């Protein structure tokens, strides 16, 4: 399975959470609470990690059990025997699996190279948590063996150890860097405003207005004016 599609990379990381209780709370619950407390939109730490298209963070408690799926086939052996014996029915059901521990799941789609992205996560991930600045360590703190992570290179190798192959890609994205995509969306929105505001003008007036428009929106300048990552309102 390919973790990349064009210049986009899909990263899915499953980090086991330590099976311990601290001050009456399980480490899984502490981690879940920290996930809930992450700010969203522009203030999300992921808005600061360069080139994040879309990311998700949650605690996986266990796997779901799926019973037998409904069958339209005319002859289904287990269904026939089930009529006569419940133990035959139960034997025909799939085995029930359990996870040995709970997992912190981090799933992201981003532009570019994995090592660079993970370095960005280590260096840029920060947010305000009731007056305290938090780094990426705060979320992963109670994951198994995370105490060995001290710097960006140990963070990168930790995340890679927990990595699963993933092929799910966010469809609403082009192959460009986040900055380019945000600038394109900004330009598209501004241009539609420009077209609406200037309809019916003479060619000369239109050209004049277009010059002013280009000076304002600076198409070549990716930094600004543009949308900021995580922007939630126009």
């Amino acid at each position, binding site marked *: 399975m390919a973790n990349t599609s064009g210049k986009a990379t899909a990263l899915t990381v499953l980090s086991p959470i330590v099976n311990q209780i601290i001050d009456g709370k399980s480490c899984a619950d502490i981690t879940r609470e920290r996930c809930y407390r992450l700010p969203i939109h522009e203030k999300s730490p992921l808005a600061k990690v360069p080139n994040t298209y879309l990311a998700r963070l949650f605690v996986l408690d266990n796997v779901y059990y799926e019973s037998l799926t409904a069958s339209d086939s005319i002859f289904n052996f287990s269904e026939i025997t089930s009529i006569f014996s419940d133990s035959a029915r139960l034997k025909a059901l799939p085995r029930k699996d359990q996870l040995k521990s709970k997992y912190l799941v981090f799933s992201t789609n981003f532009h570019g190279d994995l090592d660079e992205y993970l370095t960005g996560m280590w260096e840029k991930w920060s947010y305000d948590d009731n007056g305290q600045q938090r780094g990426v360590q705060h979320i992963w703190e109670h994951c198994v063996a995370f105490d060995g992570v001290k710097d960006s290179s140990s963070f990168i190798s930790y995340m890679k150890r927990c990595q699963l192959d993933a092929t799910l890609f966010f469809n609403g994205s082009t192959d460009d860097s986040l900055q380019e995509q945000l600038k394109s969306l900004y330009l598209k929105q501004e241009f*539609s405003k420009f*077209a*609406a*505001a200037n*309809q*019916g003008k003479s060619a000369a007036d239109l050209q004049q207005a277009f010059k002013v428009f280009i000076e304002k929106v600076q198409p070549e300048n990716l930094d600004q004016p543009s949308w900021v990552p995580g922007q939630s309102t*126009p």
Partner: protein
Amino acid sequence: MTQNLDLTDIQGNIVKAYGSSGFFKARYLFLRVDDGDKGRDFVGAITSKVTSANEKLKGDDALTVTTNMAFTYAGLQALELPTASLVGFPSDFVMGMSKRKDILGDDGPSDPKYWDKIWQEKVHIWISINGKTSDVVEERYQWILQQIKATGGVTLLRGHCGEDGNGNAVDDLPYQDASVLYEKDGVTPTAKEHFGYTDGIGDPVFDGQTNNAARVIGRGKLTRSGDWVPLATGEFILGHVDEAMEYPQTAPRPDLLSNNGTYMVYRKLHENVGTFNKFLDEQSKDYPGGKELLAAKFSGRWRDNGAPLVHTPDNESKAEWDKKFAAADDATQKRMLTDFTYNEDISGAKCPFSAHTRRINPRGSLEYGVKDAFHTPGALVDRRRILRRGLPYGKVKDETSDKGNHGIIFMALNADIKRQFEFVQQQWINYANDFKQGNDKEVLLGNHSSKDPGKVVLQVEPGSGKPPHFVNNIPRLVETRGGDYFFIPSIGALKLIAGGLVDPT
């Protein structure tokens, strides 16, 4: 085989619309149940006069006045329906309309905090009186007041905004009056609403409703062969199979409670007539086709006679169409109004994607010309249809002002409020992804905000060399002033409710 409906069990106005049968006046009452026992007695008393779908509405020996009844979820609780029945109602109905405001886009001036005072009350029962004259409506109203007095246990709620007998604005009326609008002569009824559009032309047709194949054209569902057939009955009446070949999932137990019933969305929609007229005047100054064509582009139909834009995209084709329309017999006229699809206009150059009619019923055009994209052309449309049964209310005294009480009592009937009415409102009126128009809202009903005024694009024929036209700074033209979700039971179910006999076991 065609569906046979139990017309004596289904309440009136569901299968046939009162408004198109000469019932031009209506009065809507809302009551609170204060005592379960007495409340059920009251329901029983009213049920004796509840109009069924079997009653004759036209002709000499026809009814002149009708009565119908429905309940909110809180109302069914107050009437002490068994919990095992109550838990079977869908969450949208349980929550009620004001709590669904984020989905419906009832924000800004449409926020429930600005609704008529009655909607701050506990609304339990809805009773409608439709009549051919104001006198018969008043007479039936007096009869209902007598029943309230006789049984006790219910309170008629006050708090509708409107006018008292002297034409003064008041906010504590005990009922909501509605009426068709009349020509300037004050006598000839019209099918118009306060913006001047002809309303309710393209209502859906479902199986069992009519044997007249011509009436199904443009109103049923579009098949792959291009024919129109009636929609499944279960899209509109519980206890019948729907378009997914399933019984609606919204039916509470027992079957006798839900069968032949439906859900009604009641919305009082104020029309900002002054803003609309000013907006139309301003926008049409720059619009090459002129004011009436632009007004038609907002709606999908011309204001004077409802001519569909798909067949009359400009003034020349409209003049031709008008000539044919004037010469045609009644059946042909009806057909001319409904026999079209938007597949004749995939680019939206004739009827814009933002037009009201195209938004509320895209008529099998969501395949966008992709051959066999879905199993039928209307696969994405057929489960989003609603029956509209409303009437205008109030009079416009000053066409340059938004003030006063005038608008539409919008009543939509469907088997699944969330899947049908709410979807259309949220995804097709206030959003346009399905129409490939970003977040451009429908012009007339969209919840445009003054902070971020709406815009829509009027496309032109590809290759024509003409620029598309932008309609800018669209203000909020229609505001919600109240409403709720109601369950309209069958007449058999009304009797069970009245008798305390609903048995879900």
